[in-house]
């Protein structure tokens, strides 16, 4: 039953050090975590590209979960379902609910945190949720030092989730780094709102992932953090916009809400030009409705 299609070889490293060495030596090896994104690409098998695969789910360092009072730390190969199981005490209810809304338990039991964050050209809901709540990720950079000796080095760093992407939503570290851990902050008194409009697998050009977090203070909100992700078309988290939002006094009147919505439209146009008109309109409406709900004390 071997088809007339190039067969890839499969590498299964048993430690992080082995993974870094193998991937460093051959950056074209395709990292395979849960495989739900890779296998769901149209023509993944039949196009015959047959890139060699490096399967990373048997690396103990990548499958561990640990907790402190302040955060939960999970390896990149922890599945989304395992994250829900271990994070139930620690995550706020809106965060927890948002993550349970991803696909179904069947897909969540296969999809890993790393896979959900590192898809090269598609942003999924987990990136929006984790970015909104200020989660951090650890990555290990792969670099070849000295062309002659092919010496492999790797360096480790922690980043906020939003630093993994550019404003077009492209993953900036494809074949340059391996995501190894994610650190999810424990619930606080902050309020979070998450929404998905559209089906991210079937309606990529109209789907909007929306995340908003703020600290409620008398007459206003502080530390607002808005994150919008459009599967194929952009990733938006804008400090300037958040600052403007925190200067708004509450409850804002409808004119102020309209002004903020216009500002959001402008910022989206500037930084996510590939977002489709329907994605921008959906984002605007979601934002306006959330502002009204906050000012009426509903969220």
């Amino acid at each position, binding site marked *: 039953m071997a088809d007339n299609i190039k067969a890839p070889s499969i590498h299964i490293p048993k430690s992080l050090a082995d993974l870094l060495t193998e991937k460093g030596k051959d950056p074209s090896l395709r990292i395979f975590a849960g495989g739900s994104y890779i*296998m769901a690409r149209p023509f993944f*098998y039949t196009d015959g590209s047959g890139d060699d695969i490096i399967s990373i789910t048997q690396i103990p360092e990548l499958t561990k979960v640990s907790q402190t009072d302040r955060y939960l730390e999970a390896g990149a190969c922890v599945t989304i379902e395992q994250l829900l199981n271990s994070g139930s005490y620690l995550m706020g209810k809106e965060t927890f609910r948002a993550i349970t809304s991803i696909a179904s*338990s069947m897909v969540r039991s296969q999809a890993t945190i790393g896979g959900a964050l590192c898809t090269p050209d598609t942003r999924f809901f987990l990136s929006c949720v984790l970015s909104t709540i200020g989660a951090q990720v650890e990555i290990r950079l792969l670099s070849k030092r000295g062309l002659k000796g092919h010496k492999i080095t790797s360096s480790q760093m922690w980043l906020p989730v939003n630093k993994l992407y550019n404003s077009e939503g492209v993953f900036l570290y494809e074949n340059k780094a391996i995501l190894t851990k994610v650190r999810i902050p424990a619930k606080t008194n902050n309020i979070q709102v998450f929404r998905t409009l559209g089906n991210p697998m079937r309606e990529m050009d109209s789907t909007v992932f929306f995340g908003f977090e703020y600290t409620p203070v008398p007459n206003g909100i502080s530390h607002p953090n808005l994150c919008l992700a459009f599967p194929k078309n952009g990733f938006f988290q804008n400090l300037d916009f958040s600052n403007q939002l925190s200067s708004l006094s509450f409850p804002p009147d409808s004119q102020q809400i309209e002004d903020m919505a216009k500002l959001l439209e402008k910022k989206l146009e500037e930084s996510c030009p590939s977002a489709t008109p329907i994605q921008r309109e959906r984002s605007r409406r979601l934002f306006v409705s959330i502002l009204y709900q906050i000012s009426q004390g509903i969220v």
Partner: protein
Amino acid sequence: MKLNCTIDGTQQSMVVNANKPLNRILEELSDSFVRNHGCLDAGCGNCIVLINGAARLSCLIPAFRANGAAILTYAGFRKTRFCHDIERAYAETGIKPCSQCYASKTILIGGLLNRYDQTRASSMIKGDAENKANYSIYSRDYLEREMGINICKCTDIDDIAKVVELAYTYRRQRSGR
């Protein structure tokens, strides 16, 4: 690669490309396995099988991940008592998925009832009570999300809920619980 696994209780050994999707392997082995050549992006939900007891979209499983696994397609599942409970519930309620999605939806319901069993035995989600309630596997929301993996809209979700409830009653009666 050499793939060794059990398919519907029969030990199989074959040479396949390591990245070959399991649904293609099953299609070639058995005429009765649903063919979904039109589905290119895991979008139809008609290729569900049980792998080591857990429901999975077989098109998302490459051969190298199926090595050593016990795979149950509908052809094997239909011979089990668990499937008989579901089919009895179909007959009793008069609600039945269409021929296109029948196999997958029946396995999906089987997987869901397995989860009910596990949850009764040991609380699956430990932790915060509110989060537990939000995640309730008995909720309509949960059922809708789980069944939503199959896009066929032939059966209303409230009807599926009736089948699930009745099938679970039969399962519990049978095991004296």
